[in-house]
C-alpha cells in the first residue's frame, strides 16, 4: 500500500506542477491569498439533495459564506452523487480542463476512489485548511482515510455516518443484536425486514456489514480484492443471504430502491425493522411525522460500519479558492455545531470536540435528548469500511446471484 500511494502522490504532484502555470491555481498554503481570490466567486456545490434538512443546512451555510466571505454558494441538488463524477469525466473527455461546472462535491468511498484514479480531483488542499487541525487527524485517522484509501489531502472531512438500526418498540420487544440473530428474527417475523437493492449504496453497506460479521478473514477486506480468494471469503455471506431472502419483505423477490425508501416502508407499516446510514434518521423522521414516537434506534452489539463523508474539488473547477474557503468554513466549530444540532440536520461532527476551546465546545451542547435518537455512547463501536474494490466486487456478485428473480 505505502509505496503505491507514495507513487500516486508523486504522480499527482507532478501533474499539479505541470498544469500550474497554465491554470493559475491559488496556493492553499497562503490562506490570506486564497480568501482574497475567493472574494466575489460563486461556488457550485454538488451535493445529494434528497433530504430537506440537509438542503436547509446547506442553505444556511450559503448565507454565512455570503455574509462573511462574499462567496456565493449555489447548491446543485443531485439525485445521485455519481452523476457529478460522470459529469467531470464528460468534461475531461471533451477537453474542458479549466472551466468545469462543479466546484465542490459531497463525496466519499467509491466515488472518491474513481475520481482519484482518473486524476479528476484538485489538490492536495485539505491539510492546508486552517480549521483542518481541529479534527486532530493523528488521533482520528478516519478523517484522512476513505474506505481504507488515504485521502492525501484531496478531500476534506465534513461529517460522520454509521449504520444504525431502528425498530418500532410498540411492536417489537427485542430486536436482533447481530447479523446472525437477524436471520432468526426474520424467520420469526417474515416480510418485515429488507435492505435496498444492490447497487444502492446503503444496500451495499448492508452486504459489507454482513460479510464482516460472517467471515473469519476480516483482514482481507481491508486490501484490494483478490479474485482468487473472493469466492472463499464471501461464501458464508451468500449462504447467509440464500437463507435470509425468503423471509424478507416480498420474499426477496423485490427490494426497496434506496436507503430512505426503507424509512417510507417502515412508515407504511410494511417493515418493522430497518436501518439507516444516518444515526439521527429515525429521530428526525419522528419529528417530521414519518415514524411513530415509539421508534427506537440502536447499534448491533459488535459494532456497525461507519465512515466519514468528505468534500472534494474537481480538477477543472474555475473557483478553487471559493471552494477551499467553503470547505474550511464547513470545518469551523460554528458550522459543525449547527450541522450536528438535531433541529438543523443532526449529522455528526468530524471535529475532536473534547479538544476544542471551551467556548467552541459549548456550541455543541444540545438541548434535551430525543427519545428516538441513539444513546450518546452507542456509536463508539465503529467498524471501518473495507477497501472500495470490495464494494464493486460484492455488487457484481450479488447481481449475478440475485439480480434476476
Amino acid at each position, binding site marked *: 500500500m505505502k509505496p503505491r500511494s507514495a507513487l500516486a502522490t508523486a504522480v499527482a504532484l507532478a501533474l499539479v506542477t505541470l498544469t500550474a502555470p497554465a491554470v493559475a491555481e491559488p496556493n492553499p498554503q497562503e490562506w490570506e491569498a486564497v480568501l482574497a481570490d475567493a472574494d466575489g466567486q460563486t461556488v457550485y456545490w454538488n451535493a445529494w439533495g434528497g433530504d*430537506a434538512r440537509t438542503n436547509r443546512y446547506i442553505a444556511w451555510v450559503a448565507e454565512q459564506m455570503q455574509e462573511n466571505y462574499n462567496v456565493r454558494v449555489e447548491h446543485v441538488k443531485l439525485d445521485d452523487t455519481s452523476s457529478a463524477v*460522470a*459529469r467531470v469525466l464528460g468534461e475531461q473527455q471533451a477537453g474542458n480542463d479549466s472551466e468545469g461546472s462543479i466546484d465542490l462535491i459531497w463525496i466519499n468511498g467509491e466515488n472518491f476512489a474513481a475520481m482519484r484514479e482518473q486524476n479528476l480531483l484538485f489538490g492536495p488542499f485539505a491539510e492546508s485548511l486552517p480549521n483542518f487541525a481541529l479534527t486532530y487527524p493523528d488521533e482520528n485517522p478516519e478523517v484522512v482515510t476513505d474506505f481504507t484509501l488515504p485521502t492525501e489531502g484531496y478531500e476534506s472531512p465534513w461529517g460522520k455516518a454509521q449504520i444504525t438500526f431502528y425498530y418500532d418498540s410498540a411492536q417489537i420487544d427485542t430486536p436482533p443484536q447481530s447479523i446472525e440473530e437477524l436471520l432468526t428474527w426474520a424467520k420469526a417475523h417474515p416480510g418485515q425486514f429488507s435492505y435496498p437493492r444492490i447497487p444502492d449504496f446503503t444496500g451495499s453497506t448492508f452486504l459489507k456489514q454482513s460479510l464482516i460479521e460472517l467471515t473469519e478473514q476480516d483482514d482481507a477486506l481491508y486490501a484490494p480484492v483478490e479474485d482468487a480468494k473472493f469466492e472463499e471469503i464471501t461464501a458464508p455471506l451468500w449462504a447467509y443471504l440464500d437463507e435470509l431472502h425468503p423471509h424478507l419483505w416480498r420474499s426477496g*423477490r423485490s427490494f426497496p430502491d434506496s436507503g430512505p425508501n426503507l424509512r417510507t416502508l417502515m412508515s407504511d407499516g*410494511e417493515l418493522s425493522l430497518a436501518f439507516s446510514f444516518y444515526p439521527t434518521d429515525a429521530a428526525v423522521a419522528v419529528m417530521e411525522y414519518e415514524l411513530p414516537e415509539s421508534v427506537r434506534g440502536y447499534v448491533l452489539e459488535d459494532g456497525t460500519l461507519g465512515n466519514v463523508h468528505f468534500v472534494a474539488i474537481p480538477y477543472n473547477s474555475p473557483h478553487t479558492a471559493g471552494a477551499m474557503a467553503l470547505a474550511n468554513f464547513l470545518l469551523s466549530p460554528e458550522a459543525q455545531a449547527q450541522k450536528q444540532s438535531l433541529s438543523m440536520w443532526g449529522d455528526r461532527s468530524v471535529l475532536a470536540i473534547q479538544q476544542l476551546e471551551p467556548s467552541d465546545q459549548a456550541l455543541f451542547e444540545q438541548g434535551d435528548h430525543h427519545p428516538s435518537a441513539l444513546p450518546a455512547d452507542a456509536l463508539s463501536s465503529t467498524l471501518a469500511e473495507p477497501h472500495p474494490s470490495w464494494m464493486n466486487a460484492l455488487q457484481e456478485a450479488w447481481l449475478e446471484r*440475485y*439480480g434476476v428473480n
Partner: protein
Amino acid sequence: MLRLAPLLILALLVIPVTAGLGMVLLPAFGYLPVLGSEQANLSAWQMLFAQPGLGRSVTVSFVSGLASTALALLIVVLFLAASQGTWLDRSLRRLVSPLLAIPHAAVAFGFAFLIAPSGLMARLISPWLSGWEAPPDALIVNDPWGLALTFGLVLKEAPFLLLMSLAALPQLQAEQRLRLARSLGYAPTLAWLKVVLPSLYPLIRLPVYAVIAYATSVVDMALILGPRLPPTLSVSILGWFNDPDLTRRFMASAAAVLQLGVTLAALISWWLLEQLARRLGQRWLTNGERTRGDTAVRLIGRAGFSVASVAALAALVGLVLFSVAGFWRFPELLPQSFTVDHWQRSASMLAGPLANTALIALLSTGLAAVLVVATLENEQRQQLHPTRSLWLLYLPLLVPQIAFLYGLVVAAERWGIRPQMALVVAGHLLFVLPYVYLSLAETYRRLDPRWLYIAQSLGVSRRRAFWRVRLPLIIAPLLTSVAVGLAVSIGQYLPTQLLGAGRVPTVTTEAVALASGSNRRLIGVWAIVQAGLPLLGFMLAIALPRWLGVPKRTTPTTQSQG
C-alpha cells in the same frame, strides 16, 4: 425569412440529436480516449450481453411500451366511439387538460401509493372488510413483468392520445359521416368505429408512435413503478452512465444504442400490427353488421376512460393528502393529523426554481410557437404539401432521450458551449417544438383558405392578412398547443439536469432530487407545485380567447348562413 423557418427548425432538432447519438456510438464501439481507449472494439457489447437479466430488461421495456400504448389507444378509441355528448362524456373530456398537466413522476408516485399493499385502495377496505391490520406482503408495485408500470403509463398516455384525437376530429366532419351511417341503420358506436375511426387513425398515427417511443424508454415512471430485479433497460442505462466505475460508460453507451434498437423494434412491430389490423379490419368494416356489440362497446368505452381518469385523480388526491399529512399509518384511511409544516418548509426553496421553470418554459415554448407558425404559414403561402422531410421534426420524440442526451452533453462541451440557461432552453426546444407542431399543424392546414381570399380581395397584404385574419382565427388552438408545449417543458428532467449541469434548478429537478430522499410528504408538495404550473397554462389557454373576444366561427359559409 419565412422560407428559412423549416430549415432552421430541422437544424435545431436534427443536429443535436445526431451529434448526441454520435457521441454515444463512439464509446459504444470502444472509442473514449480519456479512459485510454482509442481502438474500435466490441468489448462494451460483450460486457453488456454478460449482464444478468439483460434479456428480461429488454423484454419488459419492449412489452410494457407496446402494451401500454395499445391499451391507451383502445381506451381512447372506445371512449370516443361511446361518447354521445352526455354530461359524463363532456366532463371526462374536460379532464383531459388537468390529467395531461400532472407530471409523469407525480402520477407514478401517486399511483404507486394507490395500488401498494399499504396504499389507499387497501386502506379503503381495511381492516373492516379485508381483516388486514398490517399490509399484506404482496408484490404489486414493481412487479417483475412491469404490469404496474404498464398501467401507470396508460394513465398518462390516454389523456394525451385523447387530446390529439380531439384536435384532429373536427376536420373529419364526423357529424355528417355519423348521420349518414345512422341513416343506414348503424348503431351509434359502431357507426363511429366504422366510418370515423379509419379516417382518424392516420391523423393520430404520429402521436401514437411518439407514445411508443416514449413508453419503451421512459425512466422516471419505470424507476418508481417498474420491476427491480432486473429493472427496465432505460433504468439500467441510467445506473451505468452514473456508475462511479467509469469503465462502465462504454457498456452504458452500448446499452443506449441497444435502447435505440428496442424502441425501433417496437415501432416496427406496431407498424406490422397496423398492417395486420388493416387486413383484418377491412372485412369487419364492410360486413354490414350494424348493431351487434354496440351496447358492449358503449359500456366498455365509458368505463375504460372513467377508470383511467379516476385512478389518475385518486393518485393526485393521495399526493395532496400526503402534502398536509401528520402521522399517517396503515390502515388509517386519513392522516391522524394535518399540518402545513411541509408546505411552510418548502416555501422558501420554491421561488428560484419556480422562476427558472417559468422562464425556461415560456422561452422554449415561445420560440417553438413562432417557428412552428412560421413554418406552417410558409407552407400555406408557397402552397406546399406537407414535406416528407418534416418527419425529421419528430426525431427527438422517436429517439429515446437516454440514447442521445449523454452524448449531447459531451458534444456541447466539445464545441465549447458551457452549461447554462440558454443551453437548457435549446434542449427543451428539442422536445417542445415537435409537440407544438404535432398539436397545431392539422388545425392550421385545415383553416378555411377563403377567409384569406376574402381579405386579399379587399386589398389586404398577406402579412396583414396573417396578423388580422389568420392569427385571430387560430388563436384558440394555438394557445392549446402552447399549453401542451409548456407542460412538456415543465416536465423535462434529464435535459434540464444534464444540459444545465444542475445549475439551473427547476421545480422538476428539485422534485426529482427530493424524490431520492423518499419523503412522501415533501414529494407531495413538490409534485403538486409541479402539476399546478402546466394546469395554469391550460386554464389560461381556455380562458384567454374568451377574454380576447375571439370569434368562434371558422368558415365563411356558416357565417353567411347564420
